[in-house]
């Protein structure tokens, strides 16, 4: 007998040059696309979430950058809390740059039309401010009038609130101003600042006449400088820097403002990035699991194809083409949807931000979304589809023939890329490779834990199988470990979905908790400050007269640091290796003295050495824990304060943990009594107001008799801040919702995917006479188990992940809303059961024969 060559020279055709494969992909796919519905749904929601969130990110960054100059209003702003001295201003004048100036301070104003008064931010303006951005007033000439002298203008919201119109007058300190008009828009303004501290503007030259600037008043002086080029700003700064340092002036440039804004939004960016990443991961899970199931369903078909001679790669290509085409379509739809969603976000944001956001279509984000879509449709479909290549043709003869697992090169390469993918995606999103690797490691741990739980659970059910339970229970539980079932895959997918959703919830709670105000229960709700020593007795008497309690009456002394640990501040500033921020060294500290801990404080280290000792050599002071870290101080370190020109030698005797929002005022440095009594000082009094009418009368009398004393109604601020955070919470929840929807699609997908495995069994059960109710119960038991364990495992894992993320990634306090978490777990379980039930319905309502025939 002749024997032929063993190795056949087949023409292995590439995907692109094999028209048969394309034709088959089309024929097979045309009536079949609905089986890939979940695949495309995961793709669409995942990509939509990514595109929407990263568009928002880009929009915000872009707008903040674009507006940084307008927010600042100038190229350079020099700041001081003293009047600028004349040698410095002369130096600046010689530079021949355009200048403007302002000064601002907190003050009470009284509206003469009604006699009401309120704490405002008083801003005295001089020159052609602003250089950038718009100052919009009503009427237009308001600022021109203000510059002439006895006129003032105020924020529109303030004018509306107190029904002030152009002809009215207001009393600021001891002067009365006519109202020239209202301010609609001003650089650095915005609803956020004006609701917390509404502004009244007067001319700079009028500030002294109000009599408000006294010892201890906190006045901020700003010099606005406009230069022609950025280079000029840099040169000017270089020349002025030593002069500014010497005088403890600080400055702000557009560049720094940009950085500050970036810092301010870092947590927000991080949260957005996390959301986008989560949406992406969920999308990938959805894609991979639905394709996995699709590939399983196609096994018989593949076996036939192999029988008639198609190669493994050809079979693979057929389904790959289908999935890839749908993946592309899904990405495009998702990107479009994302752009649409992004247009909705400004509605939620409203006017929360200090700048007006223009939500242009962010083509970079759209591009990213499409690229991600393509990557996902390749990476996460190849792995499950590769199995198709190894379907043994023998399965045509034996339906349940299972070939041994094949580990192919393609599989290994894809697996490697898949592991790499979230690392790179997270690294790209968070701009940090470490974060990316850690995110991925976290996911891998979660995946491993879920797989382990699934294995243990299955083992337990087999080991302790309730043999004597009713048929329904036995059958429902047995369904969990039948051959060829999906329990493991489902437990892992559902668990991962639950895990991610509840982790997100924990982060959201922690973020919101961080900004929530705890001040509502404060003992004091009203604070009187800037009380001169000479006014102290009078103000206290007035309080008594109106039956207002004296909760705190504390002295305040302003001082600066002269040296730290024996090194003069000027020297520390030069030594950058010490990493103590400049502002902490040069700022003005407002300190107090007292001989007990306040109720908002707790001593965490050292002692409270309350007495300076007889002959004062060195005084023991206590410091708040935050500032102790900033200044890198510890108990025993020495400090020299400059109190109005008098050096006072001190050392740190103890460290206090301060709950700042709780019962203000609170202090960074607290001196013992018996040291500063003789220094010039002002007083702050805290009280609690319950009767509003009484309070109004008190406030009126206070402003009349002591115009320089300011009163803060904390309730007003608290309610404003509450409202603000309410808005922030809405935005955060709204965005988190995107990711959660993706999660739900994955959940639904995981359960739906198991349907095809169950249909046949249920039909057989029905054929042998099971009643509808019995089948429904069996299904409910099976899915109830799955849902319960998946949700519980996911939740437990999310507690760990949430804590890690909150502590190390967001650097905020970990907070859990237990009720919400339980609700999520219950929701996941119910959803699992519901979809399981929903699936079995299609079996219940169709005659068995039809199903058997369809399934062949």
């Amino acid at each position, binding site marked *: 007998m*002749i024997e032929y060559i063993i190795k056949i020279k087949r023409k292995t055709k590439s995907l692109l040059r094999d028209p048969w494969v394309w034709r088959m992909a089309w024929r097979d796919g045309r009536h079949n696309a609905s089986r890939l519905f979940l695949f495309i749904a995961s793709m669409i929601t995942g990509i939509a979430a990514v595109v929407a969130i990263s568009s928002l990110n880009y929009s915000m960054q872009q707008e903040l950058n674009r507006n940084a100059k307008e927010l600042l209003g100038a190229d350079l702003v020099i700041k001081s809390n003293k009047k600028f001295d004349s040698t410095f201003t002369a130096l600046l004048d010689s530079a021949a740059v355009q200048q403007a100036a302002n000064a601002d301070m907190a003050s009470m104003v009284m509206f003469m039309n009604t006699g009401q008064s309120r704490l405002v931010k008083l801003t005295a303006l001089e020159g052609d401010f602003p250089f950038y951005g718009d100052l919009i007033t009503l009427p237009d000439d308001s600022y021109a009038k203000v510059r002439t002298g006895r006129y003032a203008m105020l924020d529109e919201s303030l004018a509306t609130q107190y029904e002030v119109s152009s002809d009215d007058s207001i009393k600021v300190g001891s002067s009365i101003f006519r109202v020239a008009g209202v301010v609609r828009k001003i650089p650095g303004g915005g609803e956020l600042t004006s609701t917390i501290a509404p502004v009244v503007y007067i001319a700079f030259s009028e500030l002294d006449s109000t009599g408000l600037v006294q010892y201890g008043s906190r006045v901020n002086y700003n010099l606005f400088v406009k230069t022609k080029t950025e280079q000029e700003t840099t040169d000017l700064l270089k020349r002025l820097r030593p002069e500014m340092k010497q005088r403890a002036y600080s400055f702000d440039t557009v560049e720094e403002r940009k950085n500050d804004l970036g810092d301010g939004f870092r947590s927000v960016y991080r949260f957005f990035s996390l959301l986008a990443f989560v949406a992406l991961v969920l999308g990938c899970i959805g894609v991979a699991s639905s394709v996995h199931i699709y590939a399983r369903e196609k096994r018989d078909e593949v076996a036939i194809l192999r029988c008639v001679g198609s190669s493994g790669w050809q079979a693979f290509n057929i389904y790959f083409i289908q999935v890839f085409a749908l993946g592309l379509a899904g990405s495009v739809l998702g990107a479009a949807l994302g752009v649409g969603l992004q247009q909705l976000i400004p509605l939620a944001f409203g006017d929360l931000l200090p700048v007006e956001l223009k939500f242009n279509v962010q083509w970079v984000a759209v591009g990213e979304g499409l690229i991600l879509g393509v990557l996902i449709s390749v990476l996460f479909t190849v792995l499950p589809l590769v199995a198709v290549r190894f379907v043994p043709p023998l399965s045509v003869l034996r339906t349940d023939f299972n070939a041994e697992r094949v580990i192919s090169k393609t599989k290994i390469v894809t697996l490697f890329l898949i592991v790499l993918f979230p690392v790179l995606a997270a690294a790209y999103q968070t701009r940090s490779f470490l974060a990316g690797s850690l995110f991925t490691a976290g996911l891998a741990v979660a995946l491993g834990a879920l797989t382990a739980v699934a294995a243990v659970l299955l083992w337990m059910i087999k080991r302790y199988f309730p043999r004597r339970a009713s048929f329904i229970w036995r059958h429902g539980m047995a369904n969990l470990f039948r051959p060829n079932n999906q329990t493991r895959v489902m437990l892992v997918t559902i668990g991962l979905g639950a895990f991610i959703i509840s982790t997100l919830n924990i982060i959201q709670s922690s973020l919101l908790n961080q900004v929530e105000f705890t001040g509502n229960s404060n003992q004091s709700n009203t604070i009187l400050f800037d009380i001169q020593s000479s006014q102290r007795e009078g103000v206290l008497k007035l309080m008594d007269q109106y039956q207002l309690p004296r909760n705190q009456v504390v002295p305040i002394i302003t001082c600066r640091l002269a040296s730290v640990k024996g090194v003069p501040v000027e020297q520390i500033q030069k030594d950058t290796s010490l990493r103590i921020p400049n502002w902490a060294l040069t700022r003005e500290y407002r300190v107090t003295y007292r001989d007990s801990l306040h109720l908002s404080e707790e001593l965490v280290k050292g002692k409270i050495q309350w007495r300076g000792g007889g002959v004062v050599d060195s005084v023991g002071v206590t410091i708040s824990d935050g500032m102790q870290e900033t200044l890198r101080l510890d108990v025993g370190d020495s400090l020299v304060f400059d109190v109005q020109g008098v050096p006072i030698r001190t050392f740190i005797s103890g460290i206090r943990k301060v709950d700042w929002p709780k019962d203000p005022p609170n202090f960074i440095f607290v001196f013992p009594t018996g040291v500063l009594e003789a220094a010039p000082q002002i007083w702050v009094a805290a009280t609690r107001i319950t009767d509003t009418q009484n309070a109004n009368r008190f406030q009126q009398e206070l402003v009349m008799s002591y115009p320089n004393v300011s009163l803060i109604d904390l309730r007003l601020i608290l309610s404003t801040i509450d409202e603000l955070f309410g808005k922030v919470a809405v935005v955060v929840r709204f965005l988190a919702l995107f990711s959660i929807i993706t999660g739900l699609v994955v959940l639904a997908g995981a359960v739906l995917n198991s349907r095809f495995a169950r249909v046949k069994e249920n039909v057989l059960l029905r054929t042998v006479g099971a009643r509808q109710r019995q089948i429904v119960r069996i299904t409910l038991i099976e899915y109830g188990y799955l849902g319960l364990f998946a949700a519980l495992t996911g939740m437990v894992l999310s507690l760990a992940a949430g804590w890690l993320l909150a502590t190390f990634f967001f650097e905020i306090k970990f907070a859990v809303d237990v009720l919400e978490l339980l609700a999520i777990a219950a929701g996941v379980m119910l959803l699992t059961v519901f979809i399981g039930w929903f699936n079995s319905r299609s079996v219940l309502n169709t005659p068995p024969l039809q199903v058997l025939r369809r399934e062949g």
Partner: protein
Amino acid sequence: MPDIVLAAENLTKSFPSGEREIVVLDHVSFTVRQGEAVSIIGPSGSGKTTLLGLCAGLDVATSGTLSLMGFKLNAMDEDDRAYVRNQFIGFVFQNFQLLATLTALENVMVPLELRGEKGVEARARELLERVGLGDRTHHYPSQLSGGEQQRVAIARAFITAPKVLFADEPTGNLDEENATRITELLFQINREEKTTLVLVTHNLELAERTERILQMKGGKLVNERILTVA
């Protein structure tokens, strides 16, 4: 053209089962000549389907050699065997095995399209006409009866003009009337196309229409009857 198209020599197939090995095929040797019709009979579980799977290159033997059209199937990789199947072999199965997502016509076209041939539709139509389904070309398998599905499968098996046709209980799922029709069709086309036929069946009547009967028992070839066709 070699006279012998299929040669099995000491074909053995065993499956691991716990500690022991189950020997399903035990040193089976036989040959099939070009144009012959051979049937394999035997009690259930005697290894008929296993033997057929090995002969058609759907599975690999544990030991022994098998050559089909001179190709040593055991020594080839799966994709090469697929190529051999496409070039030389046709199949008819007990449960039809049509692609559910393709119409009858498309099902028939697949093997030729796989070869990359053009103008296959006319040939597919002609074959469907021959099996009496000229008017059902655009129906899906689920819209056809079992007998009709098997006729589509036969059309698909013959479209490549295979050298060898393997059939495993082709009438097993059909009623008597349909079974007779399918049998007639199978033998008729087989004669016209001069195909070699290897048939596994329980049905002695069917078996007796072939020239040789190989009888299996417990994985061994126990008897070989040679019949002369009337």
